Each structure stands twice: as structure tokens, then as C-alpha cells.
């Protein structure tokens, strides 16, 4: 029986494919770039990686509920910036989201650059027989800076091409990347430790000029680095201590979530939720399968030792380059199981699609938030200006120039800047925390809006689901923020950068965070005052007009 009559009218689109939504969310929790990078740096923890993956996924389901709910209540509104601005008022929404979606992305640039060279440039140059170039790109300082500039050039190209083109590139990259990963997993599950050891020795020597005894040297260097993270097990406490680093990889299932169309009901909420939840579930399962494959053939302890050996050198704890003079990229280690160079080249090229299909969106949210702020007159109109070919040149410059500067600081480790990698996650997590609080209070502060929404009847024990999910997600984020700031290692008398490197004892991290928030606040209050002099009261512009 009909419960609704709809006429032909503009914008009445049908639901999109859940599979498409899955693809984009799956790529956002990027297993190869974010995942491999995060796992490799997590060599010194006590909690089992599989356990940590599962526990984090449980908490991130609540993140997905929060974002799917906010999108259902306020679709097409522009995300965190608009949600927080509407629920809290102007200042908090602006300061948190400008810092989270704009300034923090500057710091992500050298991280993307590092992944570009580790996942794409170095291994491909290696299998193509360009040993010297591969080794140069693996080095400290200038190679990372160059790679960051290449990443910036690629991101700029994507903005120039537009999302219509890039969305298609992403989808093809998904298929190509998955094929590459499937081959890697098959290699891992069909190989054995002896074959790997032999292949590791011979291929490393051929590609990177390593000396015989590389395997044993790597084990020794890894042990000296304190590589200890187990595959499974660990107490609840040790597993939770692992999470603030692991979320660098999987905090992002909501990254590209959007909703279009009108007269959309609860089904669309469920589709949105499903796309993100399936992606989180699939990536978590993929992680477990991959870890088991690594354990079977490469050996879990060796994998962690290789990671420890590399990062112990790269972070400057030991002066000598690690025995394997490039990042131990797991896909490359897997193709060492074959000596067929063509297969190696094909797999490395396919695996590079994980970076190309993902990295282009680096500045997507930044550009959107810059535009939204410019339309709210909190930035000059020129910030949102397009050139004759429709490219937002000024918004790009507002991203590219500071990002290049931050990349310089990071690449050359100016004042220990490289230690603040996790601040890139922290800045966005703080913004998510604001969004989670907004979600908690939405049904009470914007009662009419909520009650006329497609999720009004979704309740747990009489409490709106969005509020319940918001409490759990905010609690999780609160835990992460406390752990990052009050590093448990440092607070038990430990020395060095601590577990996460971004505690209150890390001056660089505190200065970076402080400068970002101070800059946001200065922009907000400066423009507010400036506009007021010009006759525009920005508080009123955001205020609700009385209905009666």
C-alpha cells in the first residue's frame, strides 16, 4: 500500500549503490597506504595486532552511526563545519573544523609524500632495476621533500581534473589495487619461511645491493630496536594502549560520506551506514587475513623486526642505515617469493593504485571547508574564486604553500618535527570529538529538526541512537586524546618521545597544535570584527530566524 506519493520534481534522485559507497569508504580506510604504514611503525607495543584491530572496529562502528545519522538529519550541508556551526554556534564549529580539515591537512602532506615513495616510487624503481634511484628515494631529507612535492603536484592535478574524473580513477584503482593485493595474499599463503628467506636475500641483493646475511642482520637490528608487538594476545590494557596509534589507519570510514536527493527515508540512512560498516568490516577482515599470511610465510616476528630496524634508523635512534636499506613494504616482501621480475613489476604497479586512487582526496575536504568559510565571509571572497577553467586556484594555494613549508620541516626533521606524525590524526580527532558532542546534543538542542528526520524513531532504551552512539564515540575519542597528550610511557618515567610522540612534553607537537588553533581563532574573530565594521553581523547571519 502506498505510504507516500511523490511527483516529478527536480532533485528527486534514487538511492545510490551501496557497493559504490562501500568502495569509497573502503579506500578511505586505506589498507595499503595508511594500514601498512601504521602497522610498520607499531613495532614496540604489547597488545596483539589482531586483537587491536577488532577492538578498534567495535568503537568505530559508533563513529559510523554518528556520521550516518548526522548526514541523514542534515544532508548536503557540508559536514563537520556546518553540523557544529548549527548546533554549537559559529566559533567552535569554525575553529575545530578549520583546524581539522585545513591546517591539519598540511601535516598530512609529507605523510602522503612518505607513503608515495615507500609504496610507489622506491619499490617500482627497485623492480625496474634502477637501484641507485630507488635507494636515493628511500633516504632521509631531500628525497622525502621531493616526494612530498610530487604528492602535492598529484593532488593539485586531481583538483584541476575535478571529482567527476577522479571518482572514476578511484573506482578503477580499487579493482586494480584489489587484484594486486589478492596476488600478494596468494603469495603469502602459498609460500613458506624458507622460500621467503631465500627470496628476501636474493631479491634484496639484486634490487638494492644488500649483503649476504641480510635476514639475520635484520633480525638483530629489529631486536635491538625493541621490536616486540605480538600478532595476538596481550592484556586489555596493552591492547587499548595500541589503539591511539592504530587509528591513524582506520579512523576514516566516514571520509567521503555524502547524501544527495530529497524525500529520502530511513533506508538511505541504512544504506549509508551499510556502505561504511561493510568497508570497516572488510578492511578489518582483510587485516586479519593479511597478518595471518605474513605470519605464515614472512614470519610475524621477522616482519616486526624489519619494521623496527627501519624506523629505528629513520627516526634517528641509530646512525647506520638498516640492513634492508628501504622501507620493508609488505607487498614487496611478498613478491620476493618469486624471482619472476615481470610478476614483480606487475604486482608493484597494481599495488601503486592504492596510493593513486586514495591520495587525490587529500585536499578535498580542505577545499570544501575553505569555500564554506569564504561563503560565510570568514575568509576573503578570493579564497573561493575560480579561474577561467574552473579551478579553485587560491584555495589550492592556501593548501599547497603551507603544506610545502610543513613538508620541508618534516622532511628535514627541523627541530624534531618528524616525531609529530600522529598530530595529523590528532587534529582531525579533536574535530571529530566536537562533532560527536554535537551529535549527542542534537536531539535535544534541535528537537524539531531531529523529530522530523528519518532517524527520529531510532532509539535505544528510549534514548536517541545518535546520542548513544555519540557518547560511545566521544568516549573513545576522549580516551585517544588523553593517551596522546598524557603518554602512558612518559608518565611512568619513560624517556624519549613516548609511545605516540605527541604528548605535552613534545614542544613541537604543542607548538604546532597551538599555532593551528590560535590561527583559526584569529581568523574567526578577526573577520567577524572586520565584517561587523562593514555592517555584517556574522552572529546574526548564523542565527535562526524566528518562525512566528
Amino acid at each position: 500500500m502506498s505510504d507516500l506519493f511523490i511527483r516529478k520534481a527536480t532533485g528527486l534522485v534514487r538511492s545510490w549503490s551501496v557497493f559504490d559507497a562501500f568502495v569509497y569508504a573502503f579506500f578511505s580506510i586505506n589498507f595499503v597506504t595508511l594500514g601498512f604504514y601504521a602497522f610498520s611503525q607499531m613495532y614496540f607495543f604489547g597488545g596483539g595486532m589482531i586483537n587491536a584491530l577488532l577492538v578498534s572496529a567495535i568503537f568505530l562502528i559508533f563513529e559510523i552511526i554518528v556520521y550516518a545519522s548526522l548526514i541523514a538529519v542534515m544532508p548536503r550541508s557540508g559536514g563537520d563545519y556546518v553540523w557544529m556551526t548549527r548546533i554549537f554556534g559559529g566559533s567552535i564549529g569554525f575553529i575545530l573544523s578549520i583546524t581539522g580539515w585545513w591546517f591539519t591537512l598540511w601535516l598530512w602532506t609529507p605523510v602522503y609524500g612518505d607513503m608515495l615513495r615507500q609504496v610507489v616510487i622506491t619499490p617500482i624503481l627497485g623492480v625496474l632495476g634502477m637501484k641507485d634511484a630507488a635507494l636515493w628515494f628511500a633516504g632521509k631529507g631531500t628525497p622525502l621533500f621531493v616526494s612530498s612535492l610530487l604528492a602535492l603536484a598529484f593532488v593539485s592535478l586531481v583538483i584541476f581534473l575535478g571529482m567527476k574524473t577522479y571518482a572514476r580513477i578511484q573506482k578503477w584503482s580499487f579493482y586494480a589495487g584489489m587484484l594486486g593485493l589478492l596476488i600478494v595474499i596468494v603469495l603469502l599463503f602459498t609460500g613458506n619461511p624458507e622460500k621467503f628467506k631465500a627470496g628476501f636475500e636474493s631479491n634484496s641483493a639484486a634490487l638494492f645491493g644488500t649483503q649476504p646475511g641480510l635476514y639475520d642482520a635484520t633480525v638483530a637490528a629489529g631486536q635491538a630496536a625493541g621490536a616486540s608487538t605480538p600478532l595476538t594476545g596481550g592484556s586489555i590494557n596493552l591492547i587499548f594502549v595500541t589503539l591511539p596509534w592504530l587509528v591513524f589507519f582506520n579512523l576514516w570510514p566516514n571520509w567521503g560520506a555524502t547524501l544527495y536527493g530529497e524525500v529520502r527515508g530511513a533506508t538511505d540512512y541504512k544504506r549509508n551506514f551499510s556502505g561504511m560498516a561493510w568497508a570497516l568490516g572488510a578492511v578489518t577482515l582483510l587485516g586479519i587475513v593479511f597478518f595471518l599470511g605474513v605470519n605464515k610465510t614472512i614470519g610475524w616476528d621477522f616482519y616486526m623486526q624489519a619494521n623496527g630496524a627501519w624506523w629505528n634508523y629513520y627516526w634517528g635512534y641509530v646512525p647506520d642505515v638498516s640492513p634492508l636499506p628501504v622501507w620493508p613494504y609488505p607487498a614487496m616482501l611478498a613478491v620476493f617469493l618469486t624471482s619472476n621480475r615481470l610478476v614483480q613489476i606487475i604486482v608493484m604497479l597494481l599495488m601503486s593504485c592504492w596510493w593513486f586512487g586514495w591520495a587525490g582526496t587529500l585536499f578535498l575536504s580542505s577545499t570544501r571547508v575553505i569555500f564554506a568559510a569564504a561563503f560565510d565571509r570568514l575568509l576573503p571572497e578570493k579564497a573561493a574564486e575560480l579561474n577561467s577553467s574552473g579551478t579553485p586556484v587560491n584555495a589550492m594555494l592556501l593548501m599547497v604553500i603551507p603544506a610545502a613549508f610543513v613538508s620541508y620541516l618534516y622532511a628535514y626533521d627541523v627541530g624534531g618535527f618528524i616525531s609529530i606524525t600522529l598530530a595529523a590524526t590528532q587534529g582531525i580527532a579533536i574535530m571529530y570529538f566536537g562533532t560527536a558532542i554535537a551529535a549527542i546534543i542534537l536531539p535535544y538542542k534541535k528537537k524539531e529538526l531531529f523529530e522530523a528526520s528519518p532517524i527520529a524513531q531510532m532509539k535505544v532504551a528510549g534514548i536517541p541512537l545518535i546520542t548513544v552512539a555519540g557518547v560511545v564515540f566521544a568516549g573513545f575519542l576522549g580516551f585517544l586524546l588523553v593517551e596522546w597528550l598524557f603518554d602512558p610511557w612518559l608518565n611512568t618515567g619513560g624517556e624519549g618521545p613516548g609511545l605516540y610522540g605527541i604528548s605535552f612534553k613534545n614542544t613541537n607537537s604543542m607548538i604546532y597544535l597551538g599555532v593551528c588553533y590560535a590561527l583559526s581563532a584569529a581568523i574567526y574573530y578577526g573577520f567577524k570584527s572586520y565584517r561587523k565594521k562593514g555592517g555584517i553581523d556574522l552572529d546574526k547571519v548564523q542565527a535562526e530566524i524566528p518562525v512566528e
Partner: protein
Amino acid sequence: MTTIFFATDVHGSDICWSKFLNAGKFYNADRLILGGDMTGKAVVPFIHQGGQNYRVTLLEQVFNLTNEDELTDLKKRVRSRGYYPYMTTPDEIAELEKDPARVSKIFLQEVLKVVQQWMDLADKKLEGTDLKVYCSPGNDDMDEVDDIIRSSKRVMLMEGLVTQLDDDHEMITSGWSNQTPWQTHREENEDQLKVRYEAMTSQLKNPHTAIFNIHVPPYKSQLDEAPELDKDLRPVLAGNSMKPVGSTALRAAIEKVQPLLGLHGHIHEGRGSSRIGKTLCINPGSMYEQGTLLGAIVQLKKNKIENYVLTTG
């Protein structure tokens, strides 16, 4: 200086219409301009179940109403989203399912009823003020809407006219759009739009200080980015692929005439402002289903725009 408040695409939302009428006082605006698409898109049946009981499905959530208070409350919620509540019975619903023409009649009847209520409200709320509403139905509005607007004392139908907005600024107005996948009431091809625009621009005494109040945004202005759809009207690639759908004829007219200001709507997700040459084009977007009135305040001086800002009311 003249301050205008512009909003568009309120699509039947009672809340948005009330806010729009109050916006003049709230923002100290001298002129109120509504860009088009006043009418809603959905009729929600309230199916009588006997006694005081009704069964209603709103956004795929089922509400079983058992008393007058619940009925009133849900009707208000339905209206707040711009949909039309329709009191009916299971038997009538069964008949309507077989008779699309009758559904269209019900739509028209509900739409016109609400437009009439809105005109009455405007006459009442704006009485004793200098404020008038400049209005042009958009491509989603049925032709029958025009006569009701003409009957209003405070809301003026501006379609196809050149209006002297103040001493220094003329305004041309049209709610017609280029062709859409939905084959709506007021759409035509780009050549026809060109003729429509030229009929008005040729009458402008001072084109460079004019305002183009045209429902559809200009092509490739960034105000016209909408999700790319497949043949079944599904957003492709999960809505990640956006494409420009504005009018090329309008863009050409703006490039040629270079008016001071363009006021547009139509693409609800296209909120923003952009420049085409010297012309500032604005699309405030629409969030009518959330009861939020998106708008734009523009302060006009003789030969320039003194200031402007997009609002979220």
C-alpha cells in the same frame, strides 16, 4: 543603499516561508526576493484506521497515531519538511494506486491550498510595512500557482518582467530552467531560454547595474554542481561524481551583459558565490526539508555591491 534578502527553493516548507516573511525585519532588508520553486514534492497519506487512529509513514518510519494531539503534531512535522499531509482511507489509497491522474489532482489541490495560505500569511505579516515580496515560480511549480500569487497584495509575480527594484537597479526575473531529467513544469531548451533572456535584457536601461533573478544558475559557475545521475536517476559513484548542470544560455547572457548581480537557486547543493567577469552570482542553496532557510543578504549601492553574505536562518 538598498538591502535585499534573497532565498529560494523553499519547496512547500511552512517553516521556511514564515522565516522568509520574517527575514526582512530580522536582517533589516528593504526588499524580499524569492527565487522560485515554492511548491512541495511529496504527499504523505494519513490513513484512517477507525476512531481517532491513523497510520502514517514518514520517511519510512511508521507512526500509529491514537489521538488528536499526535495527529496535529505529526501534521506539523510533515508540513515542516515541505510535504503535504492528506487525510484518507485504506479504500481511497487502493483506488489512488490505480489512478495516477487522480493523485496528480490531489497534488495540485494540496499545493494550491498551501500557496493560498502562504499568500494570506504574507498579506497579514507584511501589512503595515514597506516590504514586498518579489516572486517567480520555478521550474517545479505548476502554472496554476501564478493566479494565486497575482491575487496577493504583498507578493508580486515578476516572471518575464523588468522591474525597477530601486532608483538605481533594475531586475529581470525568470523561474524557467534548462531541461532536467524530471521533465518539470517550466523548462525549455537553451535556445528558448536565450530568447526569453534577450526579451528582458533588451529592455534594460542600464544593464551593468541590473540584477538577474534567474532560477537556474549559469553553467560551470560552481553554483550548478549536482551529482551525476545514471539513466535510473541514481547518483553514480556514490555521489562522488559531480557535474555542472546550469544554463549555457544564461552564462552567455551574463558574459555579454555583465550585470551587477545574479541571484540563482535550483541546485540545492550548489550553495556559494562566484564571479563571472564583473558579475557576482549567488546561489544560497536550500535546506528546506530541515526547516532551515538559507539565504543571501546583499547591500546594493548605486554602481556596486557594497557587501553580501550568505545566511543560515
